[in-house]
């Protein structure tokens, strides 16, 4: 796995010649990513007869392009109508949707596209260069370390709950309890299922996402003519191409923010099973922690939009690392890619890099080229996409309800999941109206099963000794980092307040 510039240049040049595969995959990926319930994984499964019939290289490029673009597509409805297309985009509306309500939807889309593309591109290039080292990350993270990684995600609840910490924490821990529903992974005992067999396999994520974000939003917005505020309507009427360019300028001026949040995504992506949702939430939380203006997060703050979008695109290349290096897929889409490649007789692992480097490094080249082509194809569309926000709620609400409920049905094809989405819709509606954050509930639902699984594994190994969570050096370092990320913002804020007070006092003395 040594770095060979000639190989990479040749690979990129060759991948560009497959633009005819990449382009349709991009548009298909954007569509399936934007519709809740339709993931890249499902689409690749549906298109298996097509990809299996293709040459392995072409099939791989098609799947990678679809995967990368679906990640970006999921952010579009999250920003425009507060409905994340996938769980990976669940942190995007925290600041993206308030921007839309202010009439800055077009700008928010442009910022999201630029952050996604540059975050994804950067992560891809770094993955290519750092493949030998990155592939080792998964070896060092066991149950104990993963508990701390999960808690990093949960600490976001406190961040979201900044305005009413108590309510936010209640929402988050209620979500965690909901996430605990179903049979546990070690003893297979069903808990809290109300007798529903459909809940034995845990609470499905898409109905929770659809209910908490889409259905509750559709019921809430019928009070207004459109989802835009009065100021937002005026701003939308004036919006032109300059809004897109301004979005690009803003995003590029935050290049450092894009860089480090995409790296968070990359590292979390390398860990099998961690996924884009956790990466996006952790990046959001870290972004707020080190921000000079943490109080602006949740009000339509640019950095609050950049962080989750670059992180969830950083995950995309990260998930391919364990697949290619050790043959362990980092997510559902990577698992399907593994099936397709094995069908063609390609064996994953270190030998692949020696025997056919074009196939081993190919997915990353395909991803980089996809991101490159994507920025030129999608950016001009931001202006037209943002027009959806001016559609009257008379039309918007019923469309959201009917299409997202059917989306909740798609992954498991249980009628039960549509009822479940409606139940989550009611919970989400009550939460919205009474000041409990729906995103905090969703974080709980996402992280609950993962946290419990790692907890159970760690406890099982230590025969029930809770101190096992402090038993590894790496975990202890992560614990310190977690504590620092929670305490630092308060210390920084306190220091700023003190400095301001001193400056004011000094000003008063001089006067």
């Amino acid at each position, binding site marked *: 796995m040594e770095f060979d510039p000639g190989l990479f240049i040749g690979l990129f040049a060759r991948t560009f010649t497959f633009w005819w595969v990449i382009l349709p995959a991009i548009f298909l990926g954007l569509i399936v990513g934007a519709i809740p319930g339709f993931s890249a994984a499902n689409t690749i499964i*549906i298109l298996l007869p097509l990809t299996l019939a293709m040459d392995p290289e072409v099939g791989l490029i098609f799947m990678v392009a679809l995967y990368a673009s679906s990640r970006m597509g999921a952010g579009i409805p999250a920003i425009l109508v507060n409905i994340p297309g996938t769980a990976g985009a669940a942190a995007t509306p925290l600041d993206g949707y308030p921007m839309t309500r202010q009439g800055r939807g077009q700008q928010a889309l442009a910022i999201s596209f630029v952050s996604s593309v540059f975050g994804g591109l950067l992560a891809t290039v770094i993955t290519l260069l750092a493949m030998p080292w990155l592939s080792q990350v998964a070896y060092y993270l066991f149950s104990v370390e993963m508990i701390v990684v999960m808690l990093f995600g949960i600490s976001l609840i406190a961040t979201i709950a900044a305005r009413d910490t108590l309510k936010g924490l209640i929402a988050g*821990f209620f979500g965690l309890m909901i996430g605990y529903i179903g049979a*546990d992974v070690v003893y297979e005992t069903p808990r809290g299922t109300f007798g529903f067999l459909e809940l034995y396999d845990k609470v499905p994520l898409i109905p929770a996402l659809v209910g908490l974000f889409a259905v509750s939003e559709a019921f809430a917005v019928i*009070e207004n003519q459109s989802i835009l505020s009065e100021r937002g309507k005026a701003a939308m009427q004036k919006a032109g191409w300059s809004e897109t360019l301004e979005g690009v300028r803003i995003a590029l001026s935050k290049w450092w923010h894009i860089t480090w949040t995409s790296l968070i995504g990359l590292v979390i992506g390398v860990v099998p099973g961690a996924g884009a949702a956790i990466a996006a939430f952790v990046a959001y939380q870290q972004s707020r922690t080190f921000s000079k203006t943490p109080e602006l997060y949740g009000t339509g703050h640019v950095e609050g939009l950049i962080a989750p979008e670059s992180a969830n695109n950083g995950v995309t290349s990260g998930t391919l690392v364990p697949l290619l290096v050790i043959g362990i897929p980092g997510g559902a889409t990577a698992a399907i890619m593994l099936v397709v490649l094995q069908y063609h007789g390609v064996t994953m692992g270190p030998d692949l890099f020696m025997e056919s480097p074009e196939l081993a490094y190919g997915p990353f080249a395909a991803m980089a080229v996809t991101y490159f082509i994507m920025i030129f194809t999608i950016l001009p569309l931001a202006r037209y996409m943002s027009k959806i926000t001016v559609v009257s709620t008379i039309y918007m609400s*019923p469309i959201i309800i009917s299409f997202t409920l*059917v989306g909740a049905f798609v992954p498991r094809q249980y009628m039960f999941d549509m009822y479940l989405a409606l139940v989550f819709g009611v919970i989400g509606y009550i939460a919205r109206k*009474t000041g409990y954050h729906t995103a905090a509930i969703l974080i709980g639902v996402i992280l609950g099963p993962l946290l419990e699984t790692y907890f159970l594994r760690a406890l099982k190994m230590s025969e*029930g000794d809770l101190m096992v969570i402090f038993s590894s050096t790496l975990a202890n370092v992560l614990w310190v980092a977690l504590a620092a990320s929670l305490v630092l913002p308060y210390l920084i804020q306190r220091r700023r307040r003190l400095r301001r007070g001193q400056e004011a006092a000094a000003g008063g003395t001089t006067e």
Partner: protein
Amino acid sequence: MTDHDEAEKPERKSLGGDLILPIGAFLFTLYYFYTIIDVPRIAQISAFFVGSILLVLLVILAVRIGKEVKAGTADLRLGPLVEPRSFIPTRLALFGLTLGFIFFIEWLGFTIIVFLFLVLAMLLLSKGQNKGMIFGVAGVLAIGGYLLFIVAFSTRFPAGPFEQLMEKLF
């Protein structure tokens, strides 16, 4: 007390709605604990850990609200949850239509139920105006959804008379 005093009195917050989710969370947590009584201790630890934190948070919230009610700065009316009241009937009707949508989709299939739901819900929200536009939008979306999801993506949505007819025809 004079009218002037009455006018200056700060408006009381209605916190009854704030209690609905916590009450649900409290009942659910107790039910969850009940379902794990007989499971091995290791499997209980994590749930008791998270559930206990939730219960403590709920008690703190109850005390906070109780203090505000006692001080007369808040009451237990539902407040923001039911405001604006003029929308309650519309919202309940939309909820009923949504329930009907889920209930009948098994028999009517995706295309017909989406068309019917869109027409009825849009007519409800527009108070019966723009009928032509509503029928047009609902028709285009239902057919468009059929072509995109069922024909193009081969999604196994519930099939009804329309989907069966199309399958026979093409």
